[in-house]
C-alpha cells in the first residue's frame, strides 16, 4: 500500500499538530481576548503574520533557523545530536507555526463572544479564573473550538509550500499527500495525482460540511 503512504503521513501530521495547536493556542487566545496590555496589538499582528506571509518566507526562515548552522539547528546538533530539517518532526513544528493564527483567532473570537456578565457571575460565586475558564468559558464556545480544529486539520493536510521547503520530498518521511501530488504531476503520472487529489478534495469538503452543519445548529448567547 505504498500509494497510501503520503495520505497517511498527511493525516498523521494533522493528528499530532492539532493537539499541540490547542495546547499553545488556548492560552494565546485567552491572552489576546482579555489582556489589557498596551502592547496587545503588537502580539495580535505577530500571531496573524503566518496568514499573510508567503509560505516560502516561512519556509525560508525555518530552514535558516533549523539548518545545522542555524540558531536552533546548531544547538540541537551539538546538544542532542539531531538534525530536524528534512525530517517528520520539522513538519510538525512548521504545521504548528503556519496554523497558529487559524487556531488562535477562532478561539479568541469564541472567548470574545462570551458576555462579560457570565464570567463575572462565576467570579462572584467564588470561582477562580482557571475554574471559570474550564467549566464556564470553554464549554460555551465549543463551536469556536470545532472551527479551530477543523481549519487547522484541513489546512495541515492541504499545506504545500512550507512543507516542501523544510521537509523536502522524502518518501515515507516527509512526502505528504500535497507534495506527492506535485511529484506525480511532474512525472506526468496523472492517475496517481487524481487518486490523492480526489481523496483530499473529499476529505476537505466533508470536514467543512460537518463544521458548517454543526455550527448552524448552535445558538449564540
Amino acid at each position: 500500500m505504498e500509494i497510501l503512504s503520503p495520505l497517511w503521513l498527511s493525516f498523521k501530521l494533522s493528528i499530532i499538530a492539532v493537539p499541540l495547536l490547542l495546547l499553545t493556542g488556548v492560552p494565546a487566545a485567552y491572552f489576546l481576548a482579555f489582556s489589557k496590555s498596551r502592547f496587545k496589538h503588537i502580539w495580535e499582528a505577530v500571531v496573524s503574520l503566518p496568514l499573510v506571509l508567503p509560505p516560502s518566507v516561512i519556509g525560508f526562515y525555518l530552514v535558516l533557523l533549523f539548518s545545522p548552522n542555524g540558531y536552533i539547528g546548531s544547538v540541537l546538533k551539538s546538544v542532542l545530536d539531531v538534525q530536524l530539517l528534512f525530517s517528520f518532526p520539522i513538519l510538525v513544528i512548521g504545521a504548528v507555526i503556519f496554523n497558529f493564527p487559524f487556531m488562535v483567532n477562532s478561539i479568541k473570537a469564541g472567548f470574545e463572544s462570551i458576555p462579560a456578565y457570565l464570567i463575572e457571575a462565576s467570579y462572584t460565586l467564588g470561582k477562580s479564573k482557571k475554574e471559570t475558564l474550564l467549566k464556564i468559558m470553554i464549554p460555551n464556545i465549543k463551536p469556536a473550538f470545532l472551527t479551530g480544529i477543523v481549519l487547522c486539520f484541513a489546512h495541515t493536510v492541504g499545506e504545500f509550500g512550507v512543507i516542501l521547503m523544510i521537509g523536502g520530498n522524502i518518501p515515507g518521511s516527509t512526502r505528504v499527500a500535497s507534495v506527492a501530488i506535485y511529484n506525480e504531476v511532474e512525472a506526468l503520472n496523472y492517475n496517481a495525482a487524481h487518486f490523492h487529489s480526489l481523496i483530499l478534495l473529499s476529505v476537505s469538503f466533508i470536514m467543512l460540511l460537518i463544521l458548517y452543519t454543526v455550527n448552524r445548529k448552535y445558538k449564540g448567547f
Partner: protein
Amino acid sequence: MFEIKLKKRLSGTGGDFDLNLNLSIVEDDFISLFGPSGSGKTTVLRCIAGLTDPDEGFIKFGNKVWFDSVKKINLTPQERNVGLVFQEYALFPHFTVRENLEYALDKGQDRKIIDELLYISDLKELSDSKPQRLSGGQKQRLALARAFVRKPSILLLDEPMCALDRSTRRKIQIEILKLYKRYNIPIIIVSHDMTDVFKLAQKTVMLENGKIMNSGTFSEMFNKESDRKSEFVGEIISVQKNNGIYIFTILVNENLIKLSVSDNEIENINTSQKS
C-alpha cells in the same frame, strides 16, 4: 456591618461626573439605591462586588477590609463572598437549573441547601431543564436562588425585575422578601421603580449624578408633602373635548390615566408638554 466610602469618576451622557458615596449597612438591612439611569447605581454594586475599582475610598465588612485605596488593599471578587444578581440573570446556559445552583457551592459545603433553594424558589420540577427553556420569572428566581447558595455576606441586586411584566414582578418581589427573611442577609437593590422601593426596602438612598440626594425610609422620603410634588412621566395618547373640558388620556407605567383639563389650565401648558 458594612462601611462603604467610594469615589469614582464616571462618564455619562451629560458629561463626566463624580460618584461620591458614603454608606453604612447594618446586619439584615434592606437598602434600595434609587435614582435615574446613569446616576452610578450599578457602579456602586460593581465596586462592592470587586468587579470595578473605585478611584478612592474603602469598603469594610466587620473587621475585614475588602478595599482600601490608601493601604492598597483590593480583594478579588472571589475573596469577598458577595451575591450579585445581574440584570441579564447571567445563568450558565450549558448547565441545568440544578447544575447552575450546584456550581455556586463552595468546596465541602453541605449540598442540602440546593434542594432547599429549589423548593423555596418553586423550581424543583424544572431542576433538569436548561435556562433557555425557562420563562423570564423563572430565570430570575433561579438567578436569585443561585446568589443565596453560598450564604453571602451581602446580596446585591442590579435592577432584578426590569425585564419582567408587572404580575411577574410582584411575584419576584415576594420571592425576594421570602429569601431575605429566611437567610437574613443584608441586601442592596438597585432600581428605578418606585414599587420595588416601597415594597421591599427598609431604607432608600436616592442617587443622582453620583451623589446621595436624600436617604431614609420610604415614608420619610416620599410622603413629606413639602418635600416633593408627585411626579409622573407619561405619554399623551389622546385628547378629547367634552363640554368645554379637555380629557387627556395619558399612559403612565402601563396604566392609562384620564385627566380633565379646563380651558384656563390648557393656556398654561407649554408646547413641550403639549406634544
